[in-house]
């Protein structure tokens, strides 16, 4: 898969993977952290979630300007990684130093966003520059698919790292994870005269109505806690908070790893780490003609308009897609059956899921007609070992294992890693037949696929009218469909930007792509506020409607977009 690619791609791949691992470790627990620490409801958590994600994806515009005009790509990327490290450490500090208040959280979120702004778009621009070399130019689309896999390998392990750290911290005090305890502790600690009265009314009419005190006592006995209820409501949230802080510290460490990779292997991308402005300055210094791409103002305008139109439309994709860390996580917690069978749990535990994936991969190698005898032997080995390890893991599970809501987030990245070769192969097959859709068409199809993903959710939510909790496979099905949509839209979009952007605005254009993501994320938070207002199926129906309209819009401007892709600048 790496044949015909420069070594610099691997540096970008691993640096990106490290950064995304930290980011998604933090994101996997972010809403739960806010709800646990500050007692936020979905709407309040949505303000922080939407605002943070807006910063993460909007500030790359600033990062792009800084790189294009002042620092160049490499220095801006390295600086961004250091800033992110500081931000994650700040975010981790309240749990460890018993600091209170939301200000430190807001400041740290801003610092992380700023660092990401310096890092993300410029790494994409630098990767695109590696393919300005005619030797590699034809592989640009594939390069971004590989680059995108790096993001998702990092994202796949992230929720497990977050869960692992949180459980480790809780386990140290003989606690186990119970998502409701922080809220119950808050109810126990502060006066709730109106809620208490209403609880009394409900108790008078229905048997078995629970009070927060009784529920907390139940958990205390389950965890063999010897102290008073006051001790419990102090110690449990503090320990959980430390667990969350530990996960944020893991994110900080992964920034350092990313920085190390990017710095040590600089020689592999150094030649591409030159902006148009730096080329001109260097040429002027040497008294030579600069080797830059010339483009008329009119051509630049045409391309910027095409980019702008794509940016507006993809904002709606990200609005829908980024419900994954927000309303879909809340759906997983509140409306999905959490006590599952041992078989279902195979897909939620890394020690069984990874061997199973290895077994499936091995089976593909074994059955593929083109495989050599050696490859078939490796495939057979993988299948046997993967299946054996998977079965061993299966035997270690409890009879009724419990799924934690954040674990659903590992499906998207793993689907990306597995589906990327299939989608790339599909496009290659279409290209050979002369039927490959243009990049803007792929983006449009991606919008309709997104709608299909939410149709799955809407159907599931409608079933909730006659049952209490859905099987986890509904959410898994949605993640699968949304992932296919993402593969049609996101790497192709980044490649489209790299192809169409006027060279003197390379960093800024990648920042613009991420800026569109920022608008989408902001909308994700805003739309998420409707979660508490409308019926669940109506919420998903709204997602379906908005994404279908966006798909129609992109097909209505297809000619403008395809013309921009076809035109070639002079060099």
């Amino acid at each position, binding site marked *: 898969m790496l044949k015909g690619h420069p070594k610099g791609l691997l540096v970008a791949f691993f640096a990106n993977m490290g950064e995304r691992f930290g980011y998604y470790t933090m994101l996997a627990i972010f809403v739960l952290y806010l709800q646990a620490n500050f007692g936020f409801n979905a709407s309040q958590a949505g303000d922080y979630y939407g605002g943070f994600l807006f910063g993460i994806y909007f500030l790359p515009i600033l990062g792009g300007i800084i790189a294009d005009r002042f620092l160049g790509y490499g220095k801006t990327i390295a600086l961004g990684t250091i800033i992110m490290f500081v931000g994650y450490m700040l975010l981790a500090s309240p749990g460890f130093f018993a600091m209170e208040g939301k200000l430190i959280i807001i400041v740290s979120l801003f610092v992380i966003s700023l660092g990401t702004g310096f890092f993300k778009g410029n790494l994409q621009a630098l990767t695109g520059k590696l393919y300005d070399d005619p030797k590699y130019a034809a592989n640009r689309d594939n390069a971004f698919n590989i680059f995108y896999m790096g993001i998702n390998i990092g994202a796949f392990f992230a929720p497990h790292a977050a869960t692992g750290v949180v459980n480790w911290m809780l386990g140290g005090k003989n606690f186990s994870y119970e998502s409701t305890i922080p809220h119950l502790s808050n*109810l126990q600690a*502060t006066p709730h005269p109106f809620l208490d009265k209403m609880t009394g009314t409900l108790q008078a009419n229905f048997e078995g109505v629970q009070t927060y005190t009784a*529920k907390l006592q139940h958990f205390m006995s389950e965890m063999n806690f010897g102290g008073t209820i006051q001790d419990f409501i102090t110690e449990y949230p503090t320990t959980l908070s430390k667990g969350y802080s530990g996960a944020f510290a893991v994110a900080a460490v992964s920034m350092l790893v990313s920085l190390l990779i990017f710095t040590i292997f600089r020689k592999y991308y150094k030649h591409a780490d030159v902006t148009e402005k730096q080329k001109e300055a260097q040429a002027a210094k040497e008294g030579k003609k600069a080797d830059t791409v010339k483009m008329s103002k009119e051509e630049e305008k045409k391309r910027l308009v095409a980019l702008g139109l794509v940016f507006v439309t993809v904002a709606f994709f990200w609005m829908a897609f980024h419900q994954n860390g927000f309303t879909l996580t809340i759906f997983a917690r509140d409306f999905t059956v959490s006590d599952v069978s041992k078989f279902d749990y195979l897909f939620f535990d890394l020690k069984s899921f990874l061997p199973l994936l290895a077994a499936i991969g091995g089976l593909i190698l074994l059955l593929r007609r083109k495989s050599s005898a050696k490859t078939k032997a490796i495939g057979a080995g993988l299948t046997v070992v993967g299946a054996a390890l998977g079965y061993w893991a299966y035997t270690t599970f409890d009879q009724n294992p419990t799924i934690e809501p954040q674990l659903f987030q590992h499906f998207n990245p793993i689907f990306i890693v597995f589906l990327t070769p299939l989608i790339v192969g599909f496009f290659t097959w279409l290209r050979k037949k002369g039927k490959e859709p243009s990049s803007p068409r792929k983006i449009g199809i991606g919008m309709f696929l997104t709608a299909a993903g939410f149709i799955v959710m809407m159907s599931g939510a409608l079933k909730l009218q006659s049952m209490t909790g859905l099987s986890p496979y509904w959410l898994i099905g949605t993640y699968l469909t949304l992932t296919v949509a993402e593969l049609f839209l996101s790497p192709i979009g980044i490649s489209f930007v790299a192809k169409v952007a006027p060279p003197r605005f390379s960093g800024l254009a990648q920042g613009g792509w991420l800026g569109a993501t920022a608008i989408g994320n902001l909308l994700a938070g*805003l739309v998420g506020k*409707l979660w508490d207002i409308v019926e669940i199926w109506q919420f998903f129906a709204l997602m379906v409607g908005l994404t279908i309209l966006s798909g129609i819009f992109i097909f209505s401007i297809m000619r403008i977009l395809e013309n921009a892709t076809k035109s070639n600048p002079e060099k």
Partner: protein
Amino acid sequence: MKVRLIIISSLLAGILFMSGCGTDNPMQDLRDASKEIDKIEKQSENIQNKEQAFTVLRDLNGAMKDVREAALALDNKYKNMRVGSDEFKKAKQSEDFKQTMNEFEKINSEIDSSLAVISKNLDPYKDDEEVKKMLNKLQSLLISR
């Protein structure tokens, strides 16, 4: 092109508008929820089978969720106080608290009488598996988030 841009801008504006929906008046929200529970009470008079019992209970859970949110919003005023503290004792003596509590109790008694009827009408179906699951949800609904 202008028309298309207007359409896409309208979509954005629509989202912004919708996200601002909902009131900031918990007592009004409670009144609305009480009316909803009153409707459910009438609906419960005609329960013929377990499916209808389930639907009534599902709707009741939805309405009680609104009640919970309204009650929590009213309680929010005391979020920085401790249970049994002098500060909270003082707050309970205030005119504002007494007035709010009076109004709350009026609505609460309406809800109480509706719940009594609903519960009685659900009695024959309380052993059904799906109804039981929904009842379990109701039992922990006020302390969930």
